[in-house]
């Protein structure tokens, strides 16, 4: 007998100022099933699940819980109805301990911490999660934070738990515990939505698989109907009507390499970067593709001196003719290496300062300002120049960065880096959270930099972006470069295959 689905989404759409993140999706979740949700970054998986969990509301369409239409305005409301979500970016309070985070919101008037810690300890051991309940969350690594986040969702005894990429940061052992936990939950009748990049995991544990692409549902069926090749094809086989990414480059389009600017040899850092070797050439865009957590960002940060490689046998970095080892970003920047961060809110700018102040800050940091006295005039001059070059649009020039749109924020971050007159520019996810118009302009800037003879490295987990920008494509997996493609040889399937195998 076919039971009514626990949750049903009917023709649900979500748009942000006319740009659809999710469009006309029908989705059902049955009681006691594991439903895997797959798709590339930006395919709309997170948006879809956030609507179920009440984080955002659909623009159109209907959500039904137990056959009755519901409209959650807040996550707490969804939680009250038994829907919990484990977020990709963890939502823990960093200054509190693990136990306090686990029981956050459920405290009695007089909160007895001793009892709380004992309960947390017992609970975490019952899940086989090796996390110290006394530890401050800010001291935990990404994987442990994820475990606390999972434990918190499980503790609520929800009917539905949504996991957004729960395994990306976990070790194999922790994954094993996680999967046995998921299995236990299923036996108890909990329904699980499971978002993942790891196709093997999805195939192994899920009952049904739904694949999204560009916000639309492309396939949804029981797991036995899928194999990994089919999934990859469904994930990447987008219609090429999108003109931004429509152009397929051939080998003839690729810029010829200039001198070798950077040679990375056997670079290692912890378990994130493992003996990676590659080169970057001047006058070219080198695209670095890899799934989240494959160590691309860490490699770039080592190059730019933001983080340090292993102290013993950490490998060699040769920039130009010299072997270099940066312990902080400043000397790297003075040598001409700039890193345009992927997390602009945290690392990219001073959000309460104006555009001019931010750009001038980049100039001052590099020591290229015209005099030792900081003047408003110079700030205005530099800002006018770069605003024109990058087409930064703001209501007024004194607008604080936090008031700008994502695209303009990103352009300010780029301008702030480029005023430093670099020789090697590393763009990390340059168009994440950026609207379509700004993407085209940022791509233009990247291409112009390479045309002017600079070495440019672009890190992206969005395949079409890599394909349309790169003169060489490097694929990252498990902390190292595993494959190199020329634009003519690369297809989305081949790159994806290299990135997941």
């Amino acid at each position, binding site marked *: 007998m076919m039971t009514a689905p626990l949750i049903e989404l009917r023709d649900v759409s979500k748009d942000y100022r006319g740009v659809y993140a999710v469009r006309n999706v029908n989705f059902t979740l049955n009681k006691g099933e594991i439903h895997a949700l797959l798709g590339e970054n930006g395919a709309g998986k997170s948006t879809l699940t956030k609507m179920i969990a009440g984080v955002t509301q659909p623009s159109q369409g209907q959500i039904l819980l137990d056959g009755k239409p519901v409209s959650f305005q807040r996550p707490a409301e969804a939680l009250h109805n038994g829907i919990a979500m484990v977020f990709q970016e963890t939502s823990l309070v960093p200054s509190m301990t693990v136990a306090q985070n686990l029981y956050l919101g459920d405290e009695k008037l007089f909160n007895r911490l001793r009892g709380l810690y004992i309960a947390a300890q017992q609970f975490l051991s019952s899940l086989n999660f090796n996390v110290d309940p006394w530890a401050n969350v800010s001291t935990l690594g990404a994987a442990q934070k994820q475990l606390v986040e999972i434990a918190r969702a499980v503790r609520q005894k929800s009917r539905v738990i949504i996991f957004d990429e729960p395994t990306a940061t976990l070790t194999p052992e922790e994954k094993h515990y996680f999967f046995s936990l998921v299995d236990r939950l299923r036996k108890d009748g909990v329904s699980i939505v499971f978002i993942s990049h790891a196709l093997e995991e999805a195939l192994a544990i899920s009952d049904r698989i739904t694949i999204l692409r560009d916000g639309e549902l492309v396939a949804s069926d029981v797991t036995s109907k899928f194999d990994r090749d089919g999934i990859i094809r469904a994930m990447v086989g987008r219609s090429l009507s999108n003109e931004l990414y429509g152009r397929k480059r051939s*080998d003839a389009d690729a810029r*010829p*390499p*200039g*001198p*070798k600017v950077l*040679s*990375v*040899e*056997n670079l290692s850092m912890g378990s994130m970067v493992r003996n990676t*070797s*590659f*080169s970057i*050439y001047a006058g070219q865009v080198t695209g670095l593709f890899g799934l989240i957590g494959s160590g691309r960002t860490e490699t770039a940060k080592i190059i730019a001196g933001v983080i340090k490689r292993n*102290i*013993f*046998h*950490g*490998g*060699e970095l*040769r920039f130009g*003719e010299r*072997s270099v*080892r940066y312990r902080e970003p400043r000397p790297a920047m003075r040598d001409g290496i700039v890193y345009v961060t992927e997390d602009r809110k945290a690392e990219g700018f001073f959000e309460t300062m104006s555009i001019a102040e931010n750009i001038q800050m980049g100039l001052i940091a590099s020591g290229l300002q015209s005099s030792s006295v900081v003047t408003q005039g110079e700030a205005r001059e530099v800002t006018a120049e770069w605003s024109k070059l990058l087409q930064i649009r703001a209501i007024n020039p004194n607008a604080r960065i936090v008031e700008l749109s994502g695209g303009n924020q990103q352009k300010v971050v780029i301008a702030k880096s480029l005023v430093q007159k670099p020789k090697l520019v590393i763009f990390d996810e340059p168009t994440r959270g950026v609207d379509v118009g700004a993407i085209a302009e940022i791509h233009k800037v990247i291409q112009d930099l390479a045309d002017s003879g600079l070495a440019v490295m672009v890190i992206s987990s969005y395949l079409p972006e890599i394909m349309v920008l790169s003169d*060489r494509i*490097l694929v990252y997996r498990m902390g190292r*470069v595993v494959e*190199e493609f*020329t634009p003519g*040889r690369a297809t989305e399937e081949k790159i994806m295959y290299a990135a997941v195998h």
Partner: protein
Amino acid sequence: MSFLKRTYDSIFGAGEAAVTVPPLDGALLPNDALDQAELVTAAAAADNLVRDGERCFFSSGAELFRLDLMDGVTPAGRFDAPISALSADGKGTLAIGLSGKGLVVRGGKHEGRRLSGLPEADAACITAITFDGPDKLFLAVGSSRNRPEDWARDLMERNHLGSVWQVDLATGAARRIADKLGWPAGLLVRKGAGLVVSEAWRHRLIALDDKGRHTVLLDNLPAYPSRLQAGEGGFWLSLFAPRRQLIEFVLREPAFRRKMLKEIDPAHWMAPALSSGKSFLEPLQGGSVKQLGVLKPWAPSRSYGLLVRLNEAFLPEASFHSRADGTRHGITSSLSIGGRVLVTSKGGGAVLSIAADDNRREVA
């Protein structure tokens, strides 16, 4: 200061003590172009191709062969020692370096010229010769301690005893223009721009001026460079053996090396080679182990085949490879004729022919 730096580096595995090898990427992306290349002729230890006007020659051990693309190969002489280097002036004169003997000039007006000023130990190890006009030539001497066939020993001894000489054939006088080089193995005269030398043990190409001062043209090669040849719009560089992490590591362990040189059969040294995989006694680097009877093409073998096309600025623009699963290893020289390039694989015992403008970046 340098002592402190060395100590620091050896503790932390940085700088000189970092056992790293540059990656084969970009223009050096591996392919199997040499294994797909057309076989012109098989000849054990085929070495040093030269062109003398309309005629082509190559050496093979102590024998000299004439190569004709239409008529095939005909013997052109036999010497009492292995030929280590060849050069032709294009008008019938051949300069021949003989291992342990010295320079012999055959044909032309300088036939039988003997050299003065070149010490015997240096003359025994001529690795490359090139003519600079009809009466002048340059000699590269690999080492003043070892013979050309003992190059692996020279590397393992970490010698930098190579030199480059200028010889006036009219008088036979030889003048040293550079010394303390790490096995110079290739020479190229650029018209009006001086001499280019490939310095194998320092894995680089340098330009020498008249006074012996050098500037680096191309550094940090992933293999040991050998002979250089001018082609249309660029240069061809042969690289005879690969750099490997295991070997880089051995090169930083003097005690181990001394013991190895004393006690182990040279064929089984942990050293680069012109060909490998013939005996189970050969040392392996992790990754070269056969699994289920299959040797992966990317395995870090002791020998490799690599020919690189350089542009006019001496930057690599294309490359031709024979990887661990191939046999055409130990590339020692090349010669561009028309639209094709002839290549000698000393390790694979073959003379090969490839299309010069091949799109070699495709791995079939």
